């Protein structure tokens, strides 16, 4: 049995949640499984985890992992605000947000961007299926130009690419992946959690019920045919040693805030994940050539997250007591006297 506990002594089952109520085959369910794996392997303490979400099929998923953790399924498109507040209230929480493409790129676009701009310390996962699953298959704002709805309607708008938008804002961690690619998703989730600052992880996650047909660019088959990973990702947590037995020059090693490492093994052209302009170019090229570029696009470990730049104490604000918060009797009376 001891083989099946993680470094904080919990079994994998401790990271499970309620049974899913999503459609069989939904990409979101795969992501839930990747989440369980990542959190288990990382040894996240369930009580420190705060699972945040908006509204949508995707936003339901926090109920399906780490049942003993706290979570907040808020209102549509406003998860970033709730996450910001919760993070400020308690810096010790590990904020893990799950959203959909409708939730993020339609109604929630403003909040999404302003959260990135503030560099709130959290992991923000977009379960991106190019459609509104829960309201039955309308196009979302990430649907590609010319992509076809189940009933035949054609999308006439340019997509909003959450990764491109995040890069424009100087987001400190930007990655894209595919729900079917657990090998990539799991280390990316771990790295996102280890990163201090806003980590955006846009995971293409097919909606089998409404957007998995021919003509969709978010279907399993389209993604399988067009995915182009920019590097093999692996993650070494801070509590393990880094063994690099790759050929020199083939692997990039980036150290994260908590001492973990992310290792990127070159595939084809070398992508430097610390070069923002390169990241933008890679995305633009993918768009032009019709490829889905996946992997860690950009990482900046030098940016200060909001709570740090606000000089908040490490101790959660919510734990502070009267003594620490109220003016002393003396200060109070002196202050009042100043109004005379």
């Amino acid at each position, binding site marked *: 049995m001891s083989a099946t506990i993680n470094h904080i002594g919990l079994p994998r089952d401790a990271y499970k949640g309620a049974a899913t109520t999503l459609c069989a085959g939904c990409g979101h369910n795969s992501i839930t499984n990747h989440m369980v794996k990542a959190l288990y392997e990382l040894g996240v303490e369930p009580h420190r985890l705060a699972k945040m979400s908006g509204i949508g099929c995707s936003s339901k998923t926090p109920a399906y992992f780490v049942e003993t953790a706290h979570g907040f399924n808020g209102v549509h498109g406003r998860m970033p605000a709730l996450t910001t*507040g*919760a993070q400020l209230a308690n810096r010790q929480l590990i904020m893990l947000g799950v959203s959909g493409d409708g939730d993020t790129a339609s109604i929630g676009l403003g909040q999404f961007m302003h959260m990135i701009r503030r560099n709130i310390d959290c992991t923000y996962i977009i379960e991106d299926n190019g459609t509104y699953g829960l309201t039955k298959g309308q196009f979302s704002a990430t649907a590609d130009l010319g992509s076809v709805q189940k009933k035949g309607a054609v999308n006439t708008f340019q997509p909003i690419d959450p990764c491109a938008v995040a890069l424009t804002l100087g987001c400190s961690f930007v990655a894209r992946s595919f729900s079917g690619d657990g090998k990539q998703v799991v280390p990316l989730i771990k790295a996102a959690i280890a990163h201090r600052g806003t980590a955006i992880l846009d995971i293409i996650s097919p909606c089998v019920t409404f957007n998995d047909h021919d003509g969709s660019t978010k279907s399993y088959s389209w993604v399988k045919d067009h995915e182009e990973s920019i590097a093999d990702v692996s993650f070494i947590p801070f509590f393990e040693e880094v063994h690099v037995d790759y050929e020199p020059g083939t692997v990039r090693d980036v150290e994260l805030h908590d001492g973990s490492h992310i290792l990127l093994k070159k595939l084809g052209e070398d992508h430097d994940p610390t070069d923002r302009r390169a990241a933008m170019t890679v995305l633009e090229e993918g768009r032009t050539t019709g490829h889905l570029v996946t992997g860690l696009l950009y990482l900046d470990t030098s940016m200060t997250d909001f709570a740090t730049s606000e000089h908040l104490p490490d101790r959660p604000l919510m734990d502070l007591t*009267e003594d620490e918060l109220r003016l002393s009797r003396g200060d109070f009376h002196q202050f009042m006297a100043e109004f005379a």
Partner: protein
Amino acid sequence: MTNQITNDLTIQAATVNGSGSQTANLILTRAIFHMGIPVAPKNVFPSNIEGLPTWYQLRVTPQGHMARRDQVDILVAFNVATWHQDLKTVRPGGVVVHEEVFSTAEARTDVIYYPVPFSKLAKTKIQNDTLRKQLANMIYVGVVAGLLGIPWEALDHAVKRQFLSKPKAVPVNLEAIKVGFDYWQDNFSKKDSYRLEPMTGVVDGKVLVEGNQAAALGALMGGVTVAAWYPITPSSSLCENLIAYSERFRVDPKTGERRIAVVQAEDELAAVGMAIGAGWAGARAMTSTSGPGISLMAEFAGLGYYAEVPVVIFDIQRIGPSTGLPTRTSQADVGFAYTLSHGDTKHLVLLPGTVEECYEFARDAFDYADRFQTPVFVLSDLDLGMNLWMTPEFKYPDKPFDRGKVLSKADLERLAGEWARYRDVDGDGVPYRTLPGTDHPAAGYFTRGSGHDERARYTESSEAYAANMDRLVRKLETARKALPAPVIDESAESRIGLIAFGSTHAAVVEARQALAAAKRPVNYLRVRALPLSADVAEFVSRHDRVYVVEQNRDGQVFDLIRLELPPALVSRLHSIRHYDGQPIPADAIIEPILESEAVPA
């Protein structure tokens, strides 16, 4: 010069905004206050930054009346654009201090003019080129000081007080005042009957505070640690004061650590969302806004109600549907805030009536929010929030925080993890909660705005839904008894009652004195919270006629009271409404009551 009028007059300075007149106004106010005379300033400014008409009304009464007055005794006319209009507001026999060049061709003959060449004096007598425009306003202070007999010592004090942190500004300002003071002495002999005389005992221990300052201090004392806001008049100064006070009292001088996070959000949706997120995570959290922001907070307010998250929402009301008049006051968000959000949503609302209550209710709102695990709205208004009010010093809190029903790790161990987030264990409708981060496997649950059972699990069960909604009613009933009770003054021998709330209080106090003098004494109940206390119905039952006075068009609280009264009492209620954006004057209460109460009570 028979009939001396001493310490009972209203000065109105008509200037242009962005011209520095506000500093002059404050110095005049502080000088008079320093003489021991009660002051009640009202600033009427435009929704604009520079160049539009602004009025500063400074009312002085021996009794300390704090309501606005419609009639002006002394007009200081600085603004040619409003000169003719301003002149009309002066009472017969009143005084007009005006820029000499303004035409008096068609002017009234029943007032006393003191023309002063303000611009010329500024040009010739003020040396400082860069500050001339601002200092020009000080000249009027000097003239009025001369006119009313304000001693130089009071002016000196006021200037020093005003420039506490900028002592270099003191001499130049005093000099400018002196220009006006001398001009008065050298050019006029007194033709009017107004004068100020030092008083003792009345303003002792009193301070001058704006409601938004009071609320900011209250929030700090209430232990706020997360505040999110978006700028909007007239609420901005609440959070701006909070930031300023926090710099002073919440920053560790050694480490630079800040024991509060104040976020300027991208809009009000985000602001209230952040506050709710923080409240959920266990912080004392708040946001502050005004009308349009309240509208934008509607969806999140419903989440707060239904998911039962503590949060404090300040609404510093201004007038108007939509953008309306951003710099004018009203009490017209009460009804909307009370049921803010779709579905059967209902909130706790606090209605401070004085700046002292702005402080106390701001502070205690965090306790109520925690105790009842729900949004608490504090409804102040522009008049309370942005004007200076004379007040006794606020009291230091005598109670620790009430964090409500929070289960700690130890509690959960004691309960062997057996608890249910939304169960009504105590029969008061208020369930127990745990906070994220609590290190116990039973602590975690999934908060949601969708249907949930006692254990916070998703459900679409009709029974569970209805039962939960019924519990929320019980919770509101519990709160009804716990919120600040009405303040009742039934000292009058009278069958006539008056009900008011919020900043209307000032006018009511004055109106009651006048009505008593006119042999129509009225008793008074001041509502301080929603849902309404049972005391309201009882008060009505003890009176034949009860006037509900409020500053909105639709009689919003009049309606709320009618809905809570036993039907037999409903016909006793009468509505008095004032809704032109100016703070209600006592006359707006006295006149309708005198009219309908022809026979003395």
